[in-house]
């Protein structure tokens, strides 16, 4: 990047010649770097695909050779067949797309409510020390109870429909987001707050211009985990009692000794989660575009 051409030994050369030489060399070095980056990337992809082939192929081979019992552990070809069957003929509870939609809706609603409640509670408790002091033992207790068990309560109280799953997902999401928002608000640079106060900012303006943007790094980091939690909440809620959804499909596959069905449903859920993860990643990049790229991100580019 240096604007001053570097003289590499040839002292008799005129400045212009040195400049040309340096520019030529620079282009060669840049091409070299590009080449090595490309070859590194190709090797990485080859290794990734190789890993997949070994895992899936090994699974298939071991189950074909009856070293691993396909009756208990399923097999890739069986999973593909099961997926194909669901797409062609639907599940016992209706079309596969409907099951996916139901679970997705439950997870997303739970996610939205949980995130909203978590941010509000986190910012409030982070801003007001007194509130935090009052609430802290209760939060510790609430965090200590096995929240999955609340699912039974919700199923009884809210019925077999969507609300009980949304409630469970929201509870699971809430704590993840809450703790991050709370910590994020506490980590706000005191100098920034003092500076905003001196510049005449009201309490509300401080929250809007300083506290929330600063805590956003923490909050967004929690969203990745939180969406996983939302899906867990929806699936477990469906295990506990439902009329539709992927959790129900898994439960009935289990009852029918159909491991391929369990794996197929798991595969669909994983695709769902990865899609959501991608969307959250996009949101993150948009909201946190101001952040300097970290070392690992730079190396990855």
């Amino acid at each position, binding site marked *: *990047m*240096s*604007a001053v051409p570097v003289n590499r030994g040839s002292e008799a050369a005129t400045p212009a010649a040195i400049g040309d030489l340096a520019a030529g060399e620079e282009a060669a070095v840049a091409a070299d770097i590009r080449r090595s980056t490309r070859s590194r990337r190709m090797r990485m992809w080859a290794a990734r695909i190789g890993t997949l082939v070994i895992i899936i192929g090994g699974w298939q081979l071991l189950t074909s050779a009856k070293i691993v019992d396909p009756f208990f552990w399923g097999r890739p070809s069986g999973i593909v067949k099961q997926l194909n069957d669901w797409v062609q003929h639907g599940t016992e509870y209706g079309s596969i797309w409907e099951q996916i939609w139901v679970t997705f809706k439950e997870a997303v609603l739970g996610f939205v409510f949980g995130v909203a409640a978590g941010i509000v509670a986190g910012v409030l408790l982070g801003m007001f020390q007194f509130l935090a002091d009052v609430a802290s033992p209760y939060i510790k207790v609430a965090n200590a109870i096995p929240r999955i068990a609340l699912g039974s309560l919700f199923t009884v109280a809210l019925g077999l429909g969507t609300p009980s799953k949304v409630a469970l997902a929201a509870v699971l999401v809430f704590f993840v987001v809450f703790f991050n928002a709370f910590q994020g608000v506490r980590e706000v*640079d005191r*100098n*920034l707050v*003092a*500076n*905003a*106060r*001196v*510049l*005449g*900012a*009201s309490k509300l*303006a401080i929250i809007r*211009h*300083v506290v929330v*943007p*600063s805590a*956003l790094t923490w909050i967004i980091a929690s969203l990745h985990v939180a969406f996983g939690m939302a899906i867990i909440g929806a699936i477990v809620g469906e295990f506990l009692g439902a009329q539709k959804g992927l959790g129900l499909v898994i439960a009935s596959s289990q009852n029918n000794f159909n491991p391929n069905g369990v794996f197929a449903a798991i595969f669909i859920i994983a695709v769902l989660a990865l899609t959501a993860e991608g969307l959250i990643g996009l949101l993150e990049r948009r909201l*946190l575009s*101001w*952040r*300097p790229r970290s070392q690992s991100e730079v190396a990855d580019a």
Partner: protein
Amino acid sequence: MEIYPAKEMMTVASAFARRSRAARGARERTGTAQAAPIELRGVTKRFATPSGSMFTAVRGFDMTVGAGKFCAVVGPSGCGKSTSLTMVAGLERPSAGTVSVGGKPVDGITAGTSFMFQADALMPWKTVVGNVALGPVFRGVPKKEAEAQAREWLRRVHLTGFENHHPHQLSGGMRKRVSLAAALINVPSILLMDEPFGALDVQTKAMMSNELLGLWEQTRPSVIFVTHDLEEAIALADQVVVMTVGPGTVKAVYDIDLPRPRGAVQEIRFDPRFLELHHQIWESLREEVERAYARTASAASAPGAQS
């Protein structure tokens, strides 16, 4: 990144030529701020330490800064220099004594104050122009107009072309200039600076001092400038206050009778009068620094090292 120092060098060279012209123009545009005198009378500030004991940062502190005067405060680390600034700004209340600005006792955040901290108090998620515009935005100026003002101030600190950068994309010296623009955009009647250039390298620091003096001469707020650096203090200020080792109180006040405008701080250092003043004040400051050093050396566990 290597282009930034080059840009800075360019501004040093051209800043002086531009300064006198800019000064005249700016005063016509913005008018001179209503500089307010600052008075601290018998101010004491105690803090409760986390362990529950008491820590006295300043005790019986008396200081007066005339309207439009530039006052530098020097003293050893932990003598309560920063604490007195936060009390003038209204961020902290004195435990005893009174702080008044413009004849009125400080109650709540002091209106018309700008504060420059040692660490950059820039919002990393806002662009340069967004950061500078914060002052007017907080005062209720519409966003468009605030940004127009911010652009104008960025021009004055020679950062045109960097409006849409984020702070992390700038060099330390450039961030300081953004902070300076953000502090001055409100045309403050008092400007409080807490070792604002402490983290900069020597050359950048000298350049920033020149820049500060130039801008200060345009609007003439009353300034309290806290620093460790006695040379910086003498080169900039009308008045140098030497504080004792903590709990801090005023040891001596020196009037700096070097003529204004001072010109380059790098050169005034060789002025015989400067050397004389430096010698005099250093005699007084050295005792305190030595005492502070002895204290930290003997009791490294002293609580709450306030600077």
